[in-house]
């Protein structure tokens, strides 16, 4: 019995590495098969990559919310996906009103700007309420409790939206000026995709400037580094935490509008899976690490877009796109198992288990 137990730890490591290796082999073999068979021409791959960049930009913006909150509170804001959904959802009604009144086509950029602002504000309000009602009272509770609360908040929000606005799918209107595509170096790029990528980059630069060069940003970094020391410096920690939540939410709200431009359909469950994927991106880049979240998001977007075709088509696996989410979730699981500190490394000072 004693000998068996001593070997057990080694055995479990073996199993884990075995699974990881198996996944890696599968991925490599599939990729080689697909490329050697030449199933897709280069311009199709390019379009996959561009789409992945657009999708990844959305993930990156959402991931920033996760990473910011984790940096200050060491908790996964499970309800962040619903913050993302909420902004998108409420802004839908504004978008619809603009379409009906014609403003959307007459002055599309103004309309989109207003829609985005509405989305960001809605997300910020939701995040503020969740922090105030569900998270703040439990700041000092054992770790399991805020996590369960967050899960509860997530489900509550989803179904509150369903109850208030109905279970039907809302479809964002098309914006005339964004229809169609450009051709660049022989590659067809959708105009919406370009807008999404550019807008996301602008917003991320804005966030970076905020965090690095403003007083508020410095306070956020201080609280993330060491809450107690920050308090001793005269920083109102509670307020900074709220600000962090709200800034992250604003990112998510903007991401919501971009997502709507890409995919158009909005339901109360639309936040769940992108939320999880964005969390993956945040961990991938190193949780707490802001540039990491950006890079992680883009990487995951491309990986998920290119993946089904690259890994599965060569092996003749039917309907590879159904398994798109499996790829993302497998990446989630792999990262958390093998490299939970992320590729760029955690920006946190110590492990707070």
């Amino acid at each position, binding site marked *: 019995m004693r000998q068996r137990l001593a070997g057990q730890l080694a055995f479990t490591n073996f199993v884990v590495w075995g699974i990881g290796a198996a996944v890696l082999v599968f991925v490599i073999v599939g990729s080689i098969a697909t490329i050697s068979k030449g199933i897709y021409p280069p311009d199709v791959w390019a379009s996959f990559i561009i789409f992945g960049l657009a999708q990844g930009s959305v993930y990156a913006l959402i991931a920033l919310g996760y990473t910011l909150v984790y940096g200050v509170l060491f908790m996964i804001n499970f309800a962040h996906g619903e913050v993302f959904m909420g902004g998108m959802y409420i802004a839908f009604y504004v978008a619809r009103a603009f379409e009906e009144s014609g403003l959307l086509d007459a002055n599309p950029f103004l309309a989109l700007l207003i829609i985005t602002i509405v989305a960001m504000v809605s997300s910020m309000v939701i995040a503020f309420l969740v922090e105030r009602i569900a998270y703040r009272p439990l700041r000092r509770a054992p770790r*399991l409790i805020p996590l369960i609360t967050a899960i509860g908040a997530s489900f509550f929000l989803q179904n509150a939206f369903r109850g208030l*606005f109905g279970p039907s799918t809302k479809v964002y209107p098309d914006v005339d000026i964004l229809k169609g595509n450009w051709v660049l170096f022989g590659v067809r790029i959708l105009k919406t995709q370009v807008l999404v990528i550019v807008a996301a980059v602008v917003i991320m630069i804005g966030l970076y400037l905020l965090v690095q060069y403003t007083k508020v940003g410095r306070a956020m970094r201080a609280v993330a580094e060491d809450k107690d020391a920050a308090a001793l410096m005269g920083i109102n920690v509670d307020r900074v935490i709220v600000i962090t939540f709200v800034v992250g939410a604003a990112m998510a709200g903007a991401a919501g509008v971009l997502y709507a431009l890409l995919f158009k359909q909005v339901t109360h469950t639309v936040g769940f899976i992108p939320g999880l994927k964005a969390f993956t991106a945040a961990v991938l880049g190193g949780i707490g690490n802001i540039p990491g979240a950006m890079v992680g998001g883009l990487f995951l977007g491309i990986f998920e877009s290119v993946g089904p075709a690259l890994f599965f088509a060569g092996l003749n696996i039917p309907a590879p796109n159904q398994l798109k*989410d499996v790829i993302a979730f497998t990446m989630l699981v792999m990262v958390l198992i093998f490299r939970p500190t992320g590729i760029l490394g955690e920006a946190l000072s110590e*492990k707070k288990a």
Partner: protein
Amino acid sequence: MATLTATRHSTISPWRSTAQRGVVLGLVVLFIALVGLVGAFAKKDLVYEVISVGQFLLLISGFIGGYITGQRSEHLGIAARVLHGTMVAVISGVIVALFLLLATTVDFRDILVNSNRDLFAVLQFKQEAPLSGAIVLVVVFAVTGLAGSLLSLPPQRWRAPIMTGLLVVLLIGLLADLLDVLLVSGPFKPLAEFLFPRKGISVPGALALFVVSAIVSTIWPFFGQVTTPARKWINSPGRKPVKFTLIVAVLVPLIIVLPWVLQLYLSDVMTNVGIYILMGLGLNIVVGFAGLLDLGYVAFFAIGAYVMGLLTSPDSSLALSLTFWEALPISMVVAGTFGVLLGIPVLRMRGDYLAIVTLGFGEIIRILATSEVLLPVIGGPQGILGIPKPALFGLVFKDAQYIFYIVVVCALIALYVSWRLSDSRIGRAWVAIREDEDVAEAMGINLVSYKLLAFAIGATFSGMAGGIFAAKLGSIFPHSFNLLISINVLSLIIVGGMGSLPGVFIGALVLVGLPELLREFAEYRLLMYGAALVGMMLIKPEGFVPAQQRKRELAQEDVFPEELEEISAPAVAEEVAS
């Protein structure tokens, strides 16, 4: 609910907190109305022709507003307390009324789907014109707020009967249809006719219930005193076997007879509750005992169901046509093995990452089950059909009533295992791991073995539940095995109490049983679960029937034993130095 009593009233002016409370309450009532709860319940009569459950929700909101305000302003004078209580209700009523007026002029229906005529009818208390309806609404809120604040004044002894009476009327009213069906077919028929002549409770019936329960609640303390000697006797150490035999002697006939008393529909409900109890007992071991938050728990349920389907259904890809009894242990073993497999990678992870990874596993399995890739083996979106019902010595368990017995037996087995594990070396090891993993290891506890053991047993119970589920339904589809089930099970053990065995039963009855019984609730189940999780964590994280250990970890107050004062320091120092 002592934990909610804040003591900050000295720094905020009473009017400001009244205004805050009123606005918050008003928004909450508005939310409840717009989410559809008021409308859904409007059709259900609480007291026949007098008040519907929907209206009751409105009234109770005003009442609660007045009551809580009155309770929290104990430092003010009586008149002030009543005034503020009423004002809170009035303010909230005004908010709702304003919305009513707005919504009847501007049509919100294509945004807020419940902003419709049915809702307005309830809010207007059957007045024709919105304006008069709004006024009546505010007045009604004022009256209920007044009543609530008045009720907060007298001491507990006087309040209890009234609260009990109201609560009983509410419960009986919600379950009116159900009770009617139950009572009508037996010796209690006259009672059924008195209480439930048509929809809801009759007026005299409601009054009678109120009075009777108020009287009972007043007498209860005396009853308690009278029976104390008897209760002490039965609870004393030597009598445990006697107590146990008595409980068994009462419960066993009850359980045997139950499906026939409840008839088909309710037996079906009870069977579902039983399946969730099985899963709850399993997750209770993983989360409650070992402290590992597994959000992918539904995966093992699915595996158990699929194994049952594959092994027993003649239409499946395996076409082995085993019997239920042969397939069930195999389901359990396969599920348990997967429990170990899925547990191995997460052994060293911290709590929140563990939750997310298990969630990821659950989702991966769900997507794979639905995908075309595995279609030839497990049927893809079409699932597996033709799963035969269990049969024993020629008797086919075709109805829910028979399956109920299987569920009961399995639940008892799971209960026994859970009980034995909790009060043992293994159970202690799990608590130690939960409290301080590193020190637990230093005690000689092999973390790998014990964590995997928890996963394995939890998964086995879930697989058992899955197998029964498959046989009960006769066909399984991958869409039914989603995250929501994991959340369901998690909610019920949280509400009941993490790590508490009776808690699992209570949680399942409340969170699975009630929604099935109250059909109107069905659409709002998930909303309730979300609110329940958040609410429980804020108010009573140890659950309603807490396990001792968890109570110490989670509950707010510290319990200081009296014994400590009796032992004097010098005496102890003497002993140590000797």
